[in-house]
């Protein structure tokens, strides 16, 4: 009885999960088809002859996707590094040191989560123009680094480390900087991995900042490059899908490799944060 129930539930859940990924399956098979086969119905899930040249056209040629990839790799790497270092320091301050004004500042950080992008976008646009970093990658990196969510995620973990650990080090004369670098950071490796994966995904997918702050095509990151590519493609759906698949491949890979940390990160930055 229990077994049949479990089997039945499994079948229902698998059916649901398959409908959830149908758009992905359609995107992948379409990316490997000839244009004429795109809208054939019933849908031919396995193309008659696999058209790898769709990917060739996306990756090699005048507007190679590689440029966007390179920009995204560069911007995302720097942003993630910056986020980890700055969030970790701030989280240490908020979680492990008692000082005047701490809770008030933390409350302000919390409140910024409610502010829609549109409120800060216009002043940032003006500020970046004024500072001369409009239409540079810095205009994406800076807003990417300073977000509250990394701080919440790490702070949550730092709060859970018993006070004895740092107390013992204090007795031996270690200052906060030593405790942070030689005790807290090594202990928080799994949480830092979560943060890296989440922050990577978030920044790789970021669309609004590049849209507003970049005008040169050579600087475009993958999501903006993708929209640009689509505008030029018109109705070449096979190439559009090849480009779309190319754009999400890195996040899917990172997610498959780090699924456990990813989900842990989502849960602890969400529920407890």
């Amino acid at each position, binding site marked *: 009885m229990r077994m049949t129930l479990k089997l039945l*539930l499994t079948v229902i*859940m698998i059916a649901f*999960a*398959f409908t959830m*990924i149908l*758009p*992905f399956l359609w995107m992948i098979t*379409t990316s490997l088809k000839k244009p004429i086969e795109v*809208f054939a*119905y019933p*849908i031919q899930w396995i193309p008659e002859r696999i058209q790898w040249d769709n990917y060739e056209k996306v990756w090699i040629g005048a507007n190679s996707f590689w440029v966007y990839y390179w920009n995204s790799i560069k911007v995302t790497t720097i942003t993630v590094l910056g986020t980890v270092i*700055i969030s970790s*320091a*701030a989280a*240490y*301050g908020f979680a492990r040191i008692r*000082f005047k004004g*701490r809770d008030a*500042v933390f409350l302000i*950080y919390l409140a*910024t989560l*409610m*502010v*829609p*992008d*549109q*409120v*800060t*976008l*216009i*002043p*940032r*646009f003006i*500020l970046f123009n004024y500072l001369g970093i409009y239409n540079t990658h810095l205009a994406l990196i800076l*807003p990417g680094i*300073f977000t509250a969510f990394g*701080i919440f995620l790490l702070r949550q973990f730092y709060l859970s480390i018993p006070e004895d650990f740092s107390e013992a080090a204090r007795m031996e004369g270690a*200052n*906060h900087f030593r405790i942070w670098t030689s005790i807290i950071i090594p202990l928080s490796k799994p949480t830092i991995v979560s943060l890296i994966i989440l922050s990577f*995904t978030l920044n*790789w*997918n970021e*669309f*609004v900042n590049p*849209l507003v702050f970049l005008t040169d095509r050579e600087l475009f990151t*993958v*999501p903006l490059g*993708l*929209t640009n590519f*689509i505008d030029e493609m018109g109705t070449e759906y096979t190439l*559009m*899908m090849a480009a779309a698949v190319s754009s999400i491949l890195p996040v899917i890979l990172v*997610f*498959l490799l780090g*699924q456990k940390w*990813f989900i842990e990160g*989502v*849960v602890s930055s*969400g*529920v407890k944060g």
Partner: protein
Amino acid sequence: MRLRHHQTETLSGWLFILPSLLGFFILIIGPILFSLVISFTNWNFLEGMKGIQFIGFDNFIKMWGDRWFTDSMKNNLVYALITVPATMIISLLTAIGLNRGVFFKSGIRLMIFMPYISSIVAISIVWGVLYNPSQGPINAFLYSIGISDPPRWLASTDWALPAIIIMSIWAAIGYNMVIYLAGLQSIPRTLYEAAKIDGAGAFRSFQHITVPMLSPTTFFVLVTNIIYSFQVFAAIFIMTQGGPGTSTSVVTYYIYQVGFSFYDMGYASAMAWILFLIIFLITVIQWRGQKKWVNY
């Protein structure tokens, strides 16, 4: 000696948060305040700083007579009223299903989670083609099951918004399911066992244990989903550009248009602030209301 210790603690504390604090002030808090100031001006960015002209509350009054704004606001409300509850119910059911015990649990979870990690740009492009009214696979399917007049989806003023809502729900289920799953797993099994001994059936256990024990999670999911729903932008930018007519325009999209296509920075900022105030008010109301139904 004590006092000194206290002072060095304060100093180190501020030093640790200083890098992030600087960034926050320059990139978030400063801009928020600046945005408030320019919302009281009439300022076309192309005219430079000289073009700034203070006009009091004019922008805040003007927007309520601007059809693009009021229609966008209405679309935002419809979007939130449908997307939020639908996402919550489907995510909860999915989480309960997975939590009950199934084979291939992590594989299933992975599949449901996929839309959430994929870029909204790629997703919107794919759905845009799926919704193609004459040839797209969705309508091809509807024809094949005998519907001779399927919706024209993104090309129709009645169906464009529902089309975007369906896609948004699909994209949000994974995240919310994971949060609910964590909530369900934190409920002690002993509670269910005790209820069973007392003779409670599955439905009563759900009603008297799962629902109240899950209420903090439900509260979190509700608040974040409402906040996100007011920030929807990329899907609309890519799939419909607010059209046809004003049928899918939302406030974020209209602000983008006014700010970055017409460079009317004052008016765009005023609308951004109204959007912020609405999100803020809804969050505060929920925060107050939670005492009535959330158990910690």
